[in-house]
């Protein structure tokens, strides 16, 4: 935990306090990110984005609350968004529970002070929610093609629509899911802010 003085200076906008926070937390945040994302450049991007968000939101820092958990929650959301988008681009994917990387709990205990749901579970849940919210026909097409991995032609015949229509549904569904997920991000930020302000 950082001392209150550092939190206070950071809130004031003192760059040296910001640099201290960066210096001490960069290695661990990177370690956490690497559990889920193998592309080093992407990992760097996400971490930079996280620190910029901290700097931008520094006004809402509560000096007696932990900066580690604030940063950690932002980073976890950034990772989550990235993984969802990546998933969405694959031809097919599963929305069953994936293999959970156990080590993330170490980072949770360290930075959050407790163990919470794994990132994988959160990913799956938010995906299921986004898919469930699609309009009925779009949902059926999307599920059959992207999750069950069936041929577009087959699905088109089964539902009595054209292949063009199937493609259109999938594109639309993707757009809608992406939009929902992106929308979720600011909501989460507000949630964190509220949390930190009690």
């Amino acid at each position, binding site marked *: 935990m950082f001392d209150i003085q550092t939190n206070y200076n950071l809130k004031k906008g003192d760059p*040296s*306090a910001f640099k201290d926070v960066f210096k001490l937390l960069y290695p661990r945040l990177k370690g956490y990110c690497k559990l889920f994302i193998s592309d080093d450049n992407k990992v760097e991007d996400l971490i930079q984005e996280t620190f910029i968000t901290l700097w931008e939101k520094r006004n809402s820092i509560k000096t007696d609350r932990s900066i580690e958990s604030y940063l950690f929650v932002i980073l976890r959301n950034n990772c989550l968004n990235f993984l969802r988008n990546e998933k969405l681009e694959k031809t097919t994917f599963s929305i069953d529970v994936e293999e959970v990387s156990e080590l993330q709990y170490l980072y949770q205990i360290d930075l959050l002070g407790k163990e919470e749901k794994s990132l994988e579970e959160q990913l799956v849940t938010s995906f299921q929610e986004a898919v469930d919210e699609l309009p009925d026909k779009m949902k059926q097409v999307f599920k059959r093609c992207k999750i069950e991995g069936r041929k577009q032609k087959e699905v088109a015949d089964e539902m009595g629509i054209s292949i063009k229509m199937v493609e259109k549904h999938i594109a639309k569904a993707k757009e809608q899911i992406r939009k929902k997920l992106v929308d979720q991000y600011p909501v989460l930020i507000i949630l964190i802010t509220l949390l930190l302000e009690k």
Partner: protein
Amino acid sequence: MKEIIEKYLEGRASASEQMQLLKWVRKKENRIVFNSSRLGWNKSQRNKPLPEGSEKSWLNIQDQMLQKSFKRWQYSDKINLLVRIAAIFFFVLSLGGGAYIVSSTKEKDIWYSEIEAENGQISKVKLPDGSMVWLNSGSKISYNNLFAENNRDVKLEGEAYFEVQTNEDLSFVVNSGEIQVKVHGTKFNVEAYPGSENIDVVLESGKVQLLSPEVASFQYFLSPGERASFVKSNNQLNISEVNTMKYTSWKDGILNIYNQPLVEVVKRLEKRYNQEFEFAEELKDYHFTFTIKSEPLDEIIQIMEKIAPIKTKQEKNVIVFELDEEKVRELSR
């Protein structure tokens, strides 16, 4: 484990080391050790450069910060921005505190070693004679270079728990101002913070003798389970039977607050968390009972706000306790 923690904090721990650390830190009793190692590590990084491989990220972040504040400048006060840019380029390192400091001062041929546990730290020290000392936050002990040779005298300011090695020939003496504690081999706790009204000695096992450096005729033999409380203002010694756990569990990172007024609670929290507090006069008689294990300060404050009609606010780096009028009104309804 200390090495693995360090490697982990520096991002150098292998997957199997991280796994080992996870298993270890999942045990509640290890958390406090983990937390204090982390604190120590934070401090050790004070004047170190950026971690390896992070320089580019840091430059990028500064770049983006600059760009964003530049954009804001286009819409807002220009002088304000000059200050902002200046601030972005102006880096001074500052991080307060320190683990424990071992220093020596010379006095003829006698050297004194001093060991100090700063606020926010509990230190465990092995003395040259093999005795163990747990130093509570904000406490220090000193002893000279002839310790374990021709004396076993230590000077204590603050609170410490001792596990003294048996040595019939050389008695172990704790000097804490008005009271001396003389022992041969035993486990006991001495609380003698400067400025505090009492000196308290709690005996867990064995036998200790209380002496006064000023009054030669004074002596008292304490039995296990007894607590001697010496009141400095009127030189009175009160003896009571106690549950010794309550007085010694701090050495395992547990802080027991049992029916204590806010004044005392605040003193303990200040030492434990190295955080300054103030409180409204009207709150000074509020009594609290709770136990702290490895919880962070914010959790403790939240609990205190729950069990009493108080609220906190932040004034600079001081946390201020105030009466929560709203809750008082709710309670009186």
